[in-house]
């Protein structure tokens, strides 16, 4: 099932759902015909769209709201905080091309602080599916919840078949006593490769798909801190405010210590290029991730990274 198929089915089964976009139609191309007046394209007006979503939610609607992640979370930030956050209205934000998925667009389009700023708003929940299968398993729960929600949209396909989703719960893919990688979103695909490389090198390796960044699965973080010698937080996000920060907050809160290695973008935007080149250049391919953890080069050959299906 695709994002568009899921959204179509959801909207047809629930009259309260309205679909909004600030003129980003890649994943909602057929919805105007299906939904009629319940499809609202406000043009390139992210702030007005978010304000209008609050008005629709006041009337009992559930707006599913689309724009590029950078503009949805940053251009409209104060509208999300003030109109959706303070009022705690169940608008559901779908951010396109977050993180590295903005490939050659440049820093204006790089949403790599979206997790940080969205999770900073009281009442707003934050989610990041690992691939298309994860996306369609997570969204029904996200859309049913009573809170405003921000989701990093990721429609890439991996071979992994995910578990059912529960709000606030991560998905433990495997466990290991030497290293456990905590990750979310696009980087899951490369983490699967990194795990393979690390296992080939003889390590006991765990992998966790975080899925829900807020509320976060504190139990799994504490469990990994107790059972694994090293935690790696892997994210296509600034070091500040993302998963590394979340893990630090949880460990501090429970007065626990752990050895944590962050893999993130430290105080810089990434160099724009097509996605496979970006991952390679930034050191975020699965092989490079494994080698950063190991501290040495391996003979493993990185599988080719598919270019995005859409212009993501």
């Amino acid at each position: 099932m695709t994002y568009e198929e899921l959204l179509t089915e959801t909207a047809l089964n629930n009259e309260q759902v309205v679909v909004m976009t600030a003129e980003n139609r890649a994943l909602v191309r057929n919805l105007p015909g299906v939904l009629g007046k319940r499809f609202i394209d406000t043009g390139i007006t992210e702030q007005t769209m978010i304000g209008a979503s609050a008005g629709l939610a006041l009337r009992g609607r559930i707006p599913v709201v689309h724009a590029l992640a950078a503009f949805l979370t940053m251009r409209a930030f104060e509208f999300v905080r003030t109109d959706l956050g303070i009022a705690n209205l169940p608008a559901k934000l779908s951010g396109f091309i977050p993180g590295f998925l903005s490939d050659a667009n440049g820093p204006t389009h790089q949403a790599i602080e979206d997790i940080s700023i969205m999770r900073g708003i009281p009442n707003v929940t934050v989610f990041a599916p690992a691939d298309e299968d994860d996306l369609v398993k997570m969204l029904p729960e996200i859309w049913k919840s009573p809170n405003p929600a921000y989701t990093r949209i990721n429609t890439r396909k991996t071979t992994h078949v995910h578990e059912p989703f529960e709000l606030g719960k991560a998905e433990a893919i495997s466990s290991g006593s030497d290293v456990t990688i905590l990750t979310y979103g696009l980087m899951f695909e490369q983490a699967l490769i990194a795990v393979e490389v690390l296992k080939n090198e003889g390590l006991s390796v765990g992998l966790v798909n975080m899925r829900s960044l807020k509320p976060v699965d504190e139990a799994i973080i504490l469990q990994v801190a107790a059972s694994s010698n090293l935690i790696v937080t892997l994210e296509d996000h600034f070091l500040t405010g993302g998963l590394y920060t979340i893990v630090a907050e949880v460990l501090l809160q429970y007065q626990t210590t752990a050895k944590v290695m962050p893999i993130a973008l430290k105080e810089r935007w990434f160099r724009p290029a097509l996605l496979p080149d970006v991952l390679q250049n930034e050191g975020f391919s699965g092989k490079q991730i494994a080698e950063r953890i190991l501290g040495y080069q391996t003979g493993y050959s990185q599988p080719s990274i598919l270019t995005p299906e859409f212009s993501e």
Partner: protein
Amino acid sequence: MENTKHSEQDLQAIALKVREHIVRMSTAGGCFTGASLSAVDMIVYLYGEFLNLTPSNLKDPDRDYLFLSKGHDVPALYGTLVELGFMEKERLENHLSLNDHIYWHPNTHIPGVEFHSGSLGHLPSVAIGVALDLKISGSNNKVICIMGDGELNEGTCWEAVLVANAYQLDNLIFVIDRNHFQANMRTEDLIPLEPLAQKFESFGAAVKRINGHSYTELHEAFSTYPFQQGKLNVVIADTVRGKGLPSIQERADRWFCNFSANEVEQLLLELHGEHTTSLTSETLIVR
């Protein structure tokens, strides 16, 4: 055209080369082909004729300024900068490569790019800041900001017009690339803009509406700058999305194009009027 550096034919010849560069960038990852082709003639005219900008004065505080707020038409700017000697032609071969900074939106690694853009509705306000300082400093230089018509959806564009009016910035020119399309559809079918000239006029601007592909009309309009003492200048340049390539002209689905190498060769012939291209490449619209 009178008192110009180039003849109309020369400008058209430069524009044809710029369009060839755009077509060559529309492959192996692609670029905003349709959106760029509408802006070629205004950018060639502004750099070639109107602005006090040369490859040697780009750091001079007494230069004119051009801000490309419609950042995704940067292939038209890349091509113009190459043809007018601001940038080496070889750099265009690095489009989307990690060896250079030639990607889908403007950045200051490109000579002539004053400010990065890509998020719509930002540079009208940056341009106001520069225009304010030119006034404070007593400089006679002028500031251009090119905006897309779809971009005018963003409220900050209209805030900028209000502020420019309040501060009587007659050294500032907003040029609207009025190609009548936004990403997915015709502007008038989504967020209607007309009557556009009256909108700007009611906000206090002095407005000229011209054919943005006619060098004669571009020259007639810009040579009367400043249009009116104490008023923001606005040029609404009516243009055609995909101008120069009949097979993609005025098509909603040819905003961003990623053609095959074979299609590029055919489109280059089409630019010279010798061919009609049959296109099969899927187009990508989300960028």
